[in-house]
């Protein structure tokens, strides 16, 4: 026996844990519990990492999350792991419960193990509810407004629940602090303790045997079953990692309590509850919000006491299969209905605030220049800052930066200005060439990225802005005239509807205005207004 084991007994403990005897029928169907524990640990790890760069107060929370996403190296990945890990944990916990349910593994003497598991399911959902608020974007804010209102309408306890969640008047700093406190201080140790209890109970009673196991010799958990658990965990981890890298996690704009256009929706795993609520109105609402979910939890808890028969082969448990099928049908029906009835937001332009937004500082002229650059397909011969060298010079690192007049002449007659150039002449109007020149003159290795980040809708709107010569009266990002009001900060002053109506008939809304009316297509209007609303204050 080694020195360490003599002092601590740790090696013996690990050996005892790994060499547990399990029934001969154990196999791949029992891997879900291990995956759930693993995912919980991944959540704890990535959660702690996020907390190292996160300020848990409204406003700062949003800015620090954007900092994690756009500036911290690897921040996107860590947040992706945490976000998709949460969804995956819900899926795996439900799969674990389904397996146990189908096999009747909750039967005497394992009732307490099952009941602790039900509480763990509720805790997993509580993480989802509290974590949803923490990005403090519009989606988080409005989703939580609805959740706290539901809690406030609970019979008898409503006012107390509301006070407890800090949402008595509105969702604000107090609610935020309490959700964060629950999410990172109270729920993790509670979960840890219950997982420990759960595993202790599994060990105490042993893994549930199937009929026929009594006559077979038992086998050891290590290494065969341990390998199956490991392989399953690895598979889950690969899926999680790929999702974290490849699937965009939306971050909307900062929470805006005055926004009247949002359609609050909870995360996908709560949609069925959300849809249930719609069937009950007025005084019956409490049935959908409290009584039905309460009964469902109670039914889950009581499962081992309702089904008390002998353990049967899983293939013969038709009632259990029926119950699972019914639950699955009900759940997916409600979820699909919730998704189908979600109104499409009137604005089709979506800005991802999880991506860099330095393009918002560009002038409309420069942004339109990006548009001409893309339209004229300049990138087929030129690199901008990075990438492998092409036939033309790297535009972010041209040795001599000429002035705009030279650039425009060069666009019109490339070979005349640069002898030997094989560049074709660019067929654009003078104003358009001006914008292109403005954009190119501004290019440096440092801002090349900002220009590349400009989303298509903003570029399209900037082209429209230039084509209609808006800058002849308006100032945007420091460029333009001051005859009309400056366009920066428009989002703070007006609603999107107001701006749309104003474009169609300016004098109807501002009688003294000398602005002509503009007939944009729906698509153009969407993009134009979305772009104008991105102009910083």
């Amino acid at each position: 026996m080694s020195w360490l084991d003599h002092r601590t007994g740790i090696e013996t403990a690990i050996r005892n844990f790994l060499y547990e005897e399990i029934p001969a029928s154990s196999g791949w169907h029992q891997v879900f519990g291990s995956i759930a524990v693993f995912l919980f640990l991944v959540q704890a790890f990535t959660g702690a990492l996020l907390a190292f760069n996160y300020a848990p107060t409204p406003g700062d929370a949003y800015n620090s999350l954007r900092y994690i996403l756009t500036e911290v190296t690897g921040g996107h990945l860590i947040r992706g792991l945490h976000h998709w890990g949460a969804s995956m944990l819900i899926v795996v916990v439900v799969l674990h419960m389904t397996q146990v349910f189908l096999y009747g593994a909750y039967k005497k003497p394992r009732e307490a193990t099952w009941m602790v598991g039900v509480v763990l399911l509720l805790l997993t959902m509580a993480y989802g509810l509290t974590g949803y608020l923490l990005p403090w974007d519009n989606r988080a804010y409005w989703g939580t407004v609805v959740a706290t209102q539901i809690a406030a309408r609970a019979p008898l306890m409503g006012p107390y629940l509301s006070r407890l969640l800090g949402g008595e008047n509105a969702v604000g700093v107090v609610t935020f602090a309490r959700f964060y406190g629950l999410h990172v201080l109270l729920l993790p140790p509670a979960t840890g303790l219950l997982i420990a209890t759960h595993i202790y109970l599994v060990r105490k009673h042993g893994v549930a045997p199937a009929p026929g196991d009594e006559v077979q010799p038992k086998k050891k958990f290590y290494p065969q079953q341990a390998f199956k658990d490991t392989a399953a965990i690895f598979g889950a981890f690969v899926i999680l990692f790929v999702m974290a890298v490849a699937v965009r996690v939306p971050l909307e704009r900062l929470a805006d309590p005055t926004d009247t256009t949002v359609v609050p929706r909870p995360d996908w795993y709560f949609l069925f509850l959300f849809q249930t609520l719609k069937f009950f109105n007025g005084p019956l609402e409490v049935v959908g919000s409290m009584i039905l979910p309460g009964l469902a939890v109670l039914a889950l808890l009581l499962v081992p006491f309702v089904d008390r028969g002998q353990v049967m082969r899983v293939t013969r448990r038709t009632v259990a299969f029926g119950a699972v099928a019914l639950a699955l049908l009900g759940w997916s029906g409600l979820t699909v209905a919730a998704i189908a009835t979600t109104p499409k937001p009137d604005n089709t332009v979506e800005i991802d605030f999880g991506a860099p937004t330095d393009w918002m500082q560009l002038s409309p002229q420069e942004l339109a220049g990006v548009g001409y650059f893309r339209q004229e397909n300049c990138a087929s011969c030129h690199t901008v800052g990075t990438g492998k060298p092409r036939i033309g010079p790297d535009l972010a690192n041209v040795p001599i930066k000429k002035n705009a007049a030279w650039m425009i002449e060069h666009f019109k007659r490339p070979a005349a200005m640069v002898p030997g150039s094989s560049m074709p002449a660019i067929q654009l109007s003078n104003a358009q060439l001006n914008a292109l020149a403005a954009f190119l003159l501004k290019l440096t290795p440092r801002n090349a990225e900002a220009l590349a980040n400009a989303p298509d809708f903003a570029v399209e709107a900037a082209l429209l802005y230039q084509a209609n010569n808006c800058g002849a009266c308006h100032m945007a990002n420091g460029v333009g005239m001051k005859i009309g009001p400056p366009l920066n900060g428009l989002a703070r002053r007006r609603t999107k509807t107001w701006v749309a109506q104003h474009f169609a008939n300016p004098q109807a809304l501002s009688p003294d205005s000398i602005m002509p009316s503009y007939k944009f297509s729906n698509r153009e209007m969407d993009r134009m207004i979305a772009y104008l609303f991105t102009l910083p204050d």
Partner: protein
Amino acid sequence: MPATEPRADQTEVTRRGFYVTLIYGLWSIIATALSVPAAIYLLFPPKLRKAPEWVEAGDVSQLEPRVPVEMVFRQNRVDGWKVLSEKTTTWVVKFSDSNVVAFGPQCTHLGCAYHWDDNRAQFLCPCHTSIFAIDGAVVSGPAPRPLDRYDAKVENGRLLLGPLHESKEKA
């Protein structure tokens, strides 16, 4: 294992070894895939949000040559997700109209604020008695390197300062 084991047990041993190798292998991959991004996340400096800017510290056209003056100015400092506008000080020495030096306000030993002693014509640090000459060189004391300097340029008699740089040379 003794070499006299029967054959059936030996295939058992091989299969066991196979499982154990895979268990260790898969867990190593998972541990690497989590710890390497975590290390990068914590250790790599965040991307720069914007180019360092020149800030005006004050008028240096009337300064007497070789007489250090403390100047106070406001500077934007990027701190994580925030940009803070901070009051900052610098000791400015004009050697000639074209050569103006701006020292960082902290002693290079442990960061105490030092000051110019007119009588001794030296910079004194009150904490551990480091002494610097007018050009920032260490005269005596525990300071490990000369005073740090801001990037500085003079335009129309006004001193513009860039980022603070640590002196490379040793004391």
